[in-house]
């Protein structure tokens, strides 16, 4: 008996993709994530562009996580030029960065994944059942956006970040004015996390290799080394030697594999499991209260990691705003020179790696961008191979939803995946 689970267009994803699972005699024989995001060639058209344009152009890779792209690009190029930025700039970048975590995580938790766990087709119908919850989520999301807007002019593709610092300092008072809202957000996410912990997550556990940014001074997101649950800490420069994107025979998509040819996971669960110790007290206290201290190996529970990270983001933003002390020029002086630099940041959906080679005129010689979703793609497919037999006894619709839900729980950002290949959909008899 054969059966196909086919989702032409998975809803509630960033970007668009489909899913095909072909089953024969109770076992999956083929699983494909069909990414029909057309290629956009960022790495290609960056060639020859001035280094100055890179943050603005790479922001457009993804409307959901422009800040990590901007930050990875900026930091990588700053490394190529040997630029060190002072503390207050780092603080401002981190505030901007974490504000996007708030916006993106809240969007994912409440508007994209929560409908799966509450039996709704969308946040629109969820809003009918639980309007207060949705209103609270919208307000939290708005606060994240407001912080980004205050620093970057707008929350999607903000305009203030530049190589060597910022175009201008953000007025401290303008940020201080947001603190009451942020404090409200901190309370609200605590409350909503308690609710989230009660949601009926499917039983499903996988032994993952987690890979994330690791910063010895803090819960790493903006910059740091790379940590893996398999090989420990490596430098950013070593990333490309250990984790490769390549073609594999069973699929036409670019997949990332570790040096042992195994898929690995990036994203909130990876960060949470690897860097839990560096979370703030408030986050840890809530995690303990909810009984979700690592290890957390259920991909569906990425939602809970996101909730805790949102709390951590609110908490840190408040502290960082208070510590923010803009002085002097908003950008450091530097010299344009030939060089190569790479940087890894944590986009809300996982590790994002940029590497650039710049010539003496400041033009990009080549660019390499490894977005989180590309890295997770092989992992998602592996998970689906494992999940499918478990859900096959369910009604077709329900089984389909479970598979979709699994993909959604990764919060894949398909626009981000700058170089997926188009897959041919095959039906088996």
């Amino acid at each position: 008996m054969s059966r196909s689970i086919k989702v032409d267009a998975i809803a509630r994803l960033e970007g668009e993709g489909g899913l095909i699972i072909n089953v024969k005699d109770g076992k999956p024989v083929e699983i494909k994530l069909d990414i029909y995001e057309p290629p956009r060639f960022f790495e290609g058209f960056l060639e020859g562009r001035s280094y100055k344009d890179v943050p603005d152009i790479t922001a457009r890779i993804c409307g959901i996580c422009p800040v990590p792209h901007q930050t990875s690009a900026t930091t990588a190029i700053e490394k190529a030029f040997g630029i060190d930025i002072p503390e207050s700039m780092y603080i401002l970048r981190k505030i901007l960065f974490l504000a996007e975590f708030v916006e993106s995580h809240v969007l994912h938790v409440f508007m994209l994944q929560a409908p799966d766990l509450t039996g709704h087709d969308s946040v629109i119908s969820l809003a009918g059942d639980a309007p207060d919850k949705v209103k609270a989520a919208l307000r939290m999301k708005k606060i994240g956006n407001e912080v980004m807007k205050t620093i970057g002019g707008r929350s999607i593709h903000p305009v203030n970040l530049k190589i060597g610092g910022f175009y201008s300092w953000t007025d401290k008072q303008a940020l201080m004015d947001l603190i009451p809202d942020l404090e409200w957000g901190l309370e609200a996410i605590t409350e909503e996390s308690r609710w989230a912990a009660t949601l009926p997550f499917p039983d499903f556990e996988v032994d993952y290799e987690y890979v994330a940014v690791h910063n010895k001074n803090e819960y790493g997101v903006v910059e740091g080394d790379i940590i893996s649950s398999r090989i420990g800490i490596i430098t950013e420069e070593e990333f490309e030697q250990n984790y490769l994107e390549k073609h594999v025979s069973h699929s036409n998509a670019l997949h990332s594999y570790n040096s042992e040819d195994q898929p690995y996971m990036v994203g909130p669960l990876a960060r949470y499991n690897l860097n839990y110790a560096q979370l703030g007290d408030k986050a840890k206290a809530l995690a303990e209260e909810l009984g979700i201290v690592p290890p957390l190996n259920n991909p569906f529970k990425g939602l809970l990691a996101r909730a805790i990270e949102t709390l951590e983001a609110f908490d840190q933003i408040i502290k960082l705003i208070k510590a923010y002390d803009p002085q002097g020029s908003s950008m450091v002086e530097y010299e344009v020179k030939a060089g190569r630099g790479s940087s890894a940041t944590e986009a809300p959906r996982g590790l994002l790696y940029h590497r650039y080679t710049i010539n003496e005129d400041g033009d990009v010689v080549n660019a390499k961008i490894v977005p989180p979703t590309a890295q997770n793609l092989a992992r998602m497919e592996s998970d689906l191979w494992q999940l499918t037999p478990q859900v096959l006894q369910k009604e077709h619709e329900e089984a389909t939803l479970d598979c979709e839900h699994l993909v959604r729980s990764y919060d894949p950002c398909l626009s981000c995946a700058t170089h997926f290949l188009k897959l041919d959909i095959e039906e088996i008899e």
Partner: protein
Amino acid sequence: MENGKPRVAVFKFSSCSGCQLAILNLEDELLDLVGAVEIVYFLEARRLPESRPYDITFVEGSVTTQEEVERIIKIREDSGLLISIGSCATAGGVQALKNYKDVNHLIDIVYEHPEFIETLEKSTPISEHVKVDVELWGCPVDKYQILEAVSALLQNRRPNLPEHSLCLECKALGRVCVTVASGIPCLGPITKAGCGAICPSVGRGCYGCFGPSKDMDLDAFIPILRETTSSPKEAVELLRTICGYTPEFEKAAQMILEEEVANE
């Protein structure tokens, strides 16, 4: 139109999804909005089976593949009003930067197996393929312009969208002109208002993401741009950032390139 509520769809073409997110970023108005219209297709938020036809269709993204060419024609047939949102949809967007390069070369750079890549030579705006009723510019689109467009359609009036240059908006907001005060190149004088002059607000020049303003004057602008940029390359790249594929900005870039050739 069931229950008098217009059926609204949101479609994505080649893009970063940012303009769809702009809709979801209407936090204060979102619940009101979904109450006023019936959102029948908006993949980033929900999917309903059998959603055609649509009264109001928003299209994000540009056309970069043959599949997209065919899809937009179909969507046009299914749609009452078609509104393109964001500069990918109105101008070809950032991915139109590939339009200046050999597409096969680009494929070679990015992909190991070029034979699997299906793409068109150029990234093109929606209006190059089908009739578009309203264009909302910006990268991303301004969420309040989306709201204004929906309000206007619901109320059967003309949407209030500025066509004038960014300079008017910038000055009304009390921003300091970066070209005059700091000698920074700025596309403001030839760019449509609507963004809130955010770039001059942080002390940088406009990079034209809201597209060309109406009745602007390239002959007068090119000398200023050349004077404020250090090289023709910088001037051309500024024009070719987000909306470089618009006829106006493309003409401006050509004028600079031709001038450079003439000077050599």
